[in-house]
């Protein structure tokens, strides 16, 4: 990759390589592949949130619902038109992009504050959740249906690895593509500069000719597309789709924690946060599965009370500790990776 055109490309390549080799020591273990896949999936959700909330002050609290729309749409398009899900996925991504863009556009037009957007999208989330359960003919209601799209098992048989490993690399490809998009968008395109100006002072940005509504709508569209992809892959990872995968507590709360833990507006914040949160989650799953929800609730409170403003510094200190304790490198924590160009 040409580092002149894409700042941070070298760091990203390094992170990519770490994630490519991450599953090698644990190829035989479906459990660890699952944990690694969830790290990537929630990094992808948090990446979308980083763009739309971190850089655009639009707090989307309907990532679960939107991800669900993406997942169901991918399957339904593939099923009802008899096409491959590789056609269904772009359709779903486009649909979710347009939904998110409309929300952003309306919110920006009406000058919604971040609080109003969060309440609006939370309501949308609940509508989607109800619709997934209620529209039984399409979604199979709360019992759902098997979700084994993208004929990954064929690839897996050909290569001679478990299907979960193929899925992991598929998710990784999408995450890295998302990261390239992020680096380009935020770090080197005029969009990044416009986002920054709008975030600093919306009125001032408008006065120097930045079309605030347009930029916010674009950020919403990009987030919507990423969320649709993440949602589809999340269902594929579970290999069975039910509304319970896409609830507010299952997706939005976790993605929010991931982003705040990792550091909002940090290039590798979503990835770092996802590693930390999923390691905690895996540890809890083994030792205190019943207390998982309670602990994440407590974590949410503490994060926002004590680390919200100073989270970047705090996360860096935290990361140095984690780097030592992770040691083996099966996570690939990119501590100093981001040069903040």
């Amino acid at each position, binding site marked *: 990759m040409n580092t002149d055109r894409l700042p941070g490309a070298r760091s990203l390549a390094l992170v990519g390589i770490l994630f490519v080799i991450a599953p090698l020591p644990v190829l035989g273990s479906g459990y660890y592949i699952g944990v690694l896949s969830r790290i990537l999936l929630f990094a992808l959700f948090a990446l979308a949130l980083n763009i739309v909330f971190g850089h655009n002050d639009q707090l989307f609290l309907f990532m679960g619902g939107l991800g669900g729309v993406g997942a169901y749409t991918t399957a339904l398009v593939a099923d009802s038109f008899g096409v491959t899900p590789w056609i269904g996925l772009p359709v779903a991504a486009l649909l979710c992009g347009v939904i998110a863009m409309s929300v952003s556009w*309306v919110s920006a037009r*009406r000058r*919604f*504050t*971040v*609080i*109003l957007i*969060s*309440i*609006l999208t*939370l*309501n*949308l989330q*609940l*509508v989607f959740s*109800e*619709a997934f*359960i*209620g*529209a039984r003919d399409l979604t199979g209601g709360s019992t759902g249906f098997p979700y084994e799209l993208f004929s990954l098992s064929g690839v897996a048989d050909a290569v001679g690895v478990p299907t979960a490993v193929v899925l992991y690399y598929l998710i990784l490809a999408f995450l890295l593509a998302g990261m390239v998009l992020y680096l380009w968008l935020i770090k080197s395109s005029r969009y990044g500069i416009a986002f920054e100006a709008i975030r600093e002072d919306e009125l001032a940005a408008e006065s120097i000719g930045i079309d605030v509504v347009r930029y916010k709508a674009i950020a919403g569209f990009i987030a919507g597309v990423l969320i649709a992809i993440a949602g589809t892959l999340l269902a594929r990872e579970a290999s069975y789709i039910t509304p319970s995968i896409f609830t*507010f*507590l299952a997706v939005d*709360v976790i993605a*929010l924690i991931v982003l705040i833990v990792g550091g909002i507006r940090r290039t590798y914040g979503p990835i770092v946060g996802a590693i930390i949160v999923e390691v905690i989650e895996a540890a809890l799953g083994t030792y205190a599965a*019943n*207390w*998982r*929800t*309670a*602990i*994440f*609730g*407590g*974590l*949410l*409170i*503490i*994060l*926002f*009370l004590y680390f*919200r403003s100073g989270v970047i510094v705090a996360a860096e200190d935290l990361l140095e500790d984690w780097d030592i304790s992770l040691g083996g490198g099966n996570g690939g924590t990119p501590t100093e990776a981001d040069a903040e160009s």
Partner: protein
Amino acid sequence: MVTVSTLAALAVDGLAFGASLALLGVGITLVYGLGEVLNLAIGAFAVIAAITAALLVDGGMSLPIAILAGLAFVGVFGLLVDRTLLSLVYRSEGEERILLGIFTTLGLTVLLEGIMVNYVSSRYSLPLNISPIDVGATVVTGTSAVSIVVTAVIIAVLFLFLNRTFLGKATRTIFQDERGARLVGIDPRKLRTLVFVLSAVVAGLAGILAAARSNVSVANSFQFTTFALIVSIVGGIRSLVGAVVAGLVLGLINTYANFFVGSYFATIILFGAAIVFLLVRPEVMSS
């Protein structure tokens, strides 16, 4: 063909459900109006009161005392939350405080839900055992009638408190002008504590009435919170009268929609109403 008496019975049930909604809406509105904290844990308060009362009844306590104990328990719990968590939230100001309030109370509701599922994981109900009442051609369930009457009394008392007592007037002063209130010697923090405890008790009553009508489980807490949120959006987050009216109207709409088009669609109508109101009148949520 749906008979008139069915429609009337539905109206009573709708008002009874609306009574719970109104109480939840009042609970969330009181706290937001006074301290700009959108209490997303209000549903958990409702569930805590209902489950406490149900457990006490199971333990052999008489129903009225168990209900009072449940309300007292959630009141004390509200006090605890106010003195600890909210004290930290009130340190920040303006939009920062609103956002912080949303996240900490959201974290609190997840925390409480996560703790409660480990101990009280079944469904709890508080049957009032009141026989149906005949009103002309219509038969009204006793529980619905009691729900409506109790809510009406509580809301009347609340309004009397806010409009007639010194403490209530002081509270309303802060609603309108916090700085002015401070200038005449009113301590907003103390009144915020009082109002938060009050809102926890009011929400607790909503939960107890819900348990009396059918049953309540830990999983309902977030649902109650969303109901409270919808009511406050439709009624206007700072208007108590608005919350009561919106609660009753939404309760009626929901019950009729439930009957005619099914429960999922009815719920979607509720959220849809909130979204429409947000888009048409976003100023109701801003300060």
